[in-house]
Each structure stands twice: as structure tokens, then as C-alpha cells.
């Protein structure tokens, strides 16, 4: 029997220094970019958390009062920091805009994939994908110069309102919801639909009983992604919602959201002051909500594989 296992020097053993160095260099370079990504994520979470907690730790604001209080008056003699109205505003515009965008987007997706696929793929789809890229300030500007006066003249109120914010956001997230729903419906196996038709189901029955249930997790993902975008959108909403900290009494009343209050004030308040710190706390709420949206999307996409 040849005994070779002990061999310690051979031209085929790793020894070429230059080559090893080059492989090592490559390894280090690509790994460092991965490390940068991890570092950024952790730094962002940690820094924003620390900064966001300052108002509770340093300034002694009660977190519960901060979240549930409805009186926001940072500049008065006895300042009060109740952010409930903004949290409510954020959730209200998010939910309402999803309520508008979801049926439109999914309906449009069904039209594009099931009723007129040729038309949908050639014309509608590229245009919708283009709309995803339109900057949010443009939506805000059109909302401000068209929607606000329209609501003022035909619906009532100042025009700057929860309703305006909702509509602007709905239009903004519509392309997102539509294009993801279209992908979801296109990804369904072909035989699903053919099987249903073969059993004599009508198109509507097929859509309702077979296609929508099969694509449900993906369709929900589309909606949640839209909601996440709506919740975090700042400028477009800020331009049309009025930014008044009072609780909106009706849908045509002015309102404010977490993002609009931050946008409006973070540049004007003194860095490190109580008022400034509370804005960072509002930012922390945004961050936490973003995490929650990501978790929901993860949960939905894990359901998708079944």
C-alpha cells in the first residue's frame, strides 16, 4: 500500500503565495462590504433608538402619556407632548389609502392578467412601472395645486385635509400595489386556471374561488408594501394635509401625521432641546412601525411557499 497521506510537500499542495494572497484579497474586499451593510443597519437602529429615547430618559417624559396624549403644545409655558393625534393621522391615511388602492390595484391586476393580458402587458404595465418611479414631491405638488382646491370648492373645508392626504397617498401607492399584484397573478401555475375552466367554472368563479385564494399571500404582500410606503411617506402628505395638531373631526378636516410633524419641525428646533428630542421619539415610532411592516411582509412571504 502506498502511504501518501503524510506527504507534506508537493507541487499540488497549497503553497503559491501570490495566488493565495489574491484570493484572500478578494475575500476581504467582498466581506468588508457585507460588514459595512451590517454595521450601517445596526448603527442606524442603535443611534435612532438612543436618540429617540432621550426625551423619555433625559427629559423625563412619560412614554405612555407621550403615545396616548392628545395635546401637542411644545412651545407653551407648560409644554405638553401628546403625539396620539399624529399616530392616529399616520394610521388613518395609511389605512384609508390602502382601502382605495387595494381594490383598484388588484382589480387592475386581474384585468391585466385575466381579462386583457395583451393590452395589459404591452401598454398598461410599462406605464404603471414608470409611475412607480415618479418622485413623491410631484404627487404632492399635483395634489396641492389640483386636489386641494377641488376639495375646498366641491367637498368642503379648507381643502387641506385627511381626505387630500389619503387620495394623494392612494394614487402614490397604486402603481406599487398594481405591479406587485400583477406579478403575483402571473406567477400562478397555468394549470390552476385551466383546471377550473375545464370544470365549467366561469371566469369570475375561477378568479374568486381559485386564483385569488391561491395568490392571497402575495396580494396581501402587495397591499402591506403599499401601506408601508404610505406610512413612511413624508413630503407628499405634508403638502396637502394641513399639518394641524388637533384631532381631525371629519375626513375633510386638517390633520397631521408623524412624518409631517417631523418634516416640518426638525429643522427649526434647537438640537438637543426637549421639543427636538420628542421629534426623534416620533422618528423612533416610525422606525418601529417600519420593522413591524417588514415582519408582516416576511410572515406573508413565508406563507407563500406553501
Amino acid at each position, binding site marked *: 500500500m*502506498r502511504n*501518501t497521506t503524510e*506527504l507534506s*510537500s508537493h507541487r*499540488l499542495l*497549497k503553497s*503559491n503565495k501570490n495566488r493565495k494572497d489574491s484570493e484572500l484579497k478578494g475575500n476581504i474586499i467582498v466581506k468588508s462590504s457585507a460588514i459595512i451593510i451590517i454595521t450601517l443597519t445596526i448603527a442606524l437602529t442603535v443611534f435612532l433608538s438612543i436618540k429617540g429615547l432621550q426625551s423619555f430618559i433625559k427629559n423625563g417624559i412619560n412614554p405612555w402619556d407621550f403615545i396616548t396624549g392628545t395635546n401637542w403644545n411644545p412651545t407653551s409655558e407648560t409644554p405638553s407632548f401628546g403625539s396620539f393625534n399624529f399616530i392616529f393621522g399616520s394610521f388613518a391615511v395609511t389605512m384609508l389609502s390602502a382601502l382605495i388602492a387595494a381594490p383598484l390595484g388588484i382589480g387592475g391586476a386581474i384585468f391585466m392578467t385575466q381579462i386583457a393580458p395583451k393590452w395589459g402587458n404591452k401598454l398598461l404595465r410599462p406605464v404603471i412601472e414608470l409611475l412607480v418611479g415618479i418622485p413623491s414631491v410631484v404627487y404632492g405638488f399635483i395634489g396641492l395645486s389640483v386636489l386641494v382646491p377641488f376639495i375646498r370648492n366641491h367637498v368642503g373645508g379648507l381643502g387641506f385635509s385627511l381626505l387630500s392626504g389619503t387620495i394623494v397617498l392612494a394614487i402614490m401607492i397604486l402603481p406599487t400595489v398594481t405591479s406587485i399584484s400583477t406579478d403575483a397573478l402571473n406567477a400562478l401555475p397555468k394549470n390552476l386556471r385551466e383546471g377550473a375552466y375545464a370544470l365549467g367554472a366561469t371566469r369570475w368563479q375561477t378568479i374568486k374561488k381559485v386564483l385569488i385564494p391561491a395568490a392571497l399571500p402575495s396580494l396581501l404582500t402587495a397591499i402591506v408594501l403599499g401601506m408601508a410606503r404610505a406610512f413612511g411617506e413624508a413630503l407628499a402628505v405634508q403638502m396637502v394635509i394641513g399639518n394641524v395638531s388637533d384631532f381631525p373631526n371629519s375626513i375633510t378636516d386638517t390633520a397631521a401625521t408623524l412624518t409631517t410633524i417631523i418634516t416640518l419641525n426638525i429643522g427649526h428646533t434647537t438640537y438637543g432641546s426637549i421639543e427636538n428630542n420628542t421629534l426623534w421619539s416620533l422618528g423612533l415610532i416610525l422606525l418601529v412601525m417600519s420593522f413591524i411592516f417588514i415582519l408582516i411582509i416576511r410572515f406573508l412571504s413565508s406563507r407563500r411557499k406553501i
Partner: protein
Amino acid sequence: MTITITDTNQSVSNPTEDQRVVDKEYILHVENLNIYYGENWAVHNVQMEIEKNAVTALIGPSGCGKSTFLRSINRMNDIIPNARAEGEILYDGINILRDDIDVVALRKEIGMVFQKPNPFPKSIYENLTHALKFAGIRNKGKLDQIVEESLRKAALWDEVKDRLHQSALALSGGQQQRLCIARTIALKPSVLLLDEPSSALDPISNAKIEELILQLKKDYSIIIVTHNMHQASRVSDKTAFFLNGDLVEYDRTSKIFTKPSEKKTEQYISGQFG
């Protein structure tokens, strides 16, 4: 029948270490080779010796582990995350399955050509020089010379000599495959592994490749996987029949195809399964 050889063309720090005892006629010794993909045991305890300057054919039904076996010889399975090989493959006195083997150096000596022609999307010339340049050959004259020599050996020179700088993707499938062979032999390997090299080609290209294999056998030890019994009997000196990961029979090709000792081999060769 053993002799002692000393490696002369490579610089090795410890000459006594390198004076290995090696069988003269064999280039590879496979001992107790087991290969796994995770839980899947793909190659079972294979024991075989591969002859030098001969063509060895691997045959067997689809999924029996031929490619897996072949790819372990130049460690191409390393890039499959859950693949694992146990046992020994001795080449030039060293077990090439060892962890500390420099697979880059190994693959230069044990070249591989794949089923589907896979030229780089570059010119014909660059396809050949890509690896040469990496190996440190920079001299233009030297490169030109190796390019011509390799293309001649691969019986492609006359067809491409006027368009060396055009895209390799414009060649026919058969030409592409010969280009792949040419760029592999440009590195002057000692072993050539061919995994169904002509199964994706038309009959004429196929015939050319077979002719080429017979030519190349003078300089290289060749292992070829094939599904084509006629090809195996035409080009190979020895044939190994695999079935479900087992090496069922390994013998001279003439014997395998005329009077195999195993019943299974006979059944497979006469087309009763597979």
C-alpha cells in the same frame, strides 16, 4: 512493476519527499471513493485504476453517478455547497482529495470539458489565452504559438485561423466544443475529463470529436462519460459500467462489449434498461 520517478520539471523543496513509488501505467488510483450530496450517497466505495495515455469510458444509466465521479477528479464538486468526497484519489503520488490540495493548480493538470459547449463570450483568441495569462504567460509570441498549437491539436485551426479575433459565440456547436477542448489542452494538462462532450452535437461534429479523442490519447490520459455505447466502443480502451452509484464492472472495452462478466452489464449494453 513499479519504478521510482523523480519530478524534474517542478521545483520542489524536498526532493526525497517527492521520490514516490508510482505504477508506471496508471495515472490515477481511486480507492474507496464515496461521494455524498448531503444525505444522498451518490458514489459507493469505488475502487479503480485509470491507465495512462489511454481512453477510459464511463457508462451507465442516467443518475448513476458518472458525472459526480468525474467531477471529483478535478475537485469541481467543491463548488457544490453540500457535496462531500471520502476515500482517496491518488495522482502523481498524492491524494488529491486532501483539504490542503491547491485545487487551482490541480485543475490545470486535470482539465475538464463539459457536456454543453461553454466558451466565454469573448473572441476565439481570448478564450484560449484567458487561462494562460492568468497562469502567468504574458509574452505575445509565446501566447500566439500556444494558441496555434492548441487549435491545431483540437483540429480547429484551419477553420478559425482567419477569424481568431471574432466572437467565439459565432462558432457552431461542434466548433465551440473543440474550442473548449483546445483551451483546456492549451494548459498542457496530463488528464482530460470529458463529460458527454458530444451529446449535444450533430453526428458530423460528433465524429470529429471522436477522431480528436483518438488523436489526443497519445499525449493525454482521457476519461470520457458517454451515453452512446457505440462511442464508448469506438474510442475507449477500457470501460467502466456504473449503476446506482456502484462500479459494477471495469475491464477492457473489447471484453465489456463482447463478453461482460456481470449480468447487469450485459443487460445494459444490450439495451434492456437505462
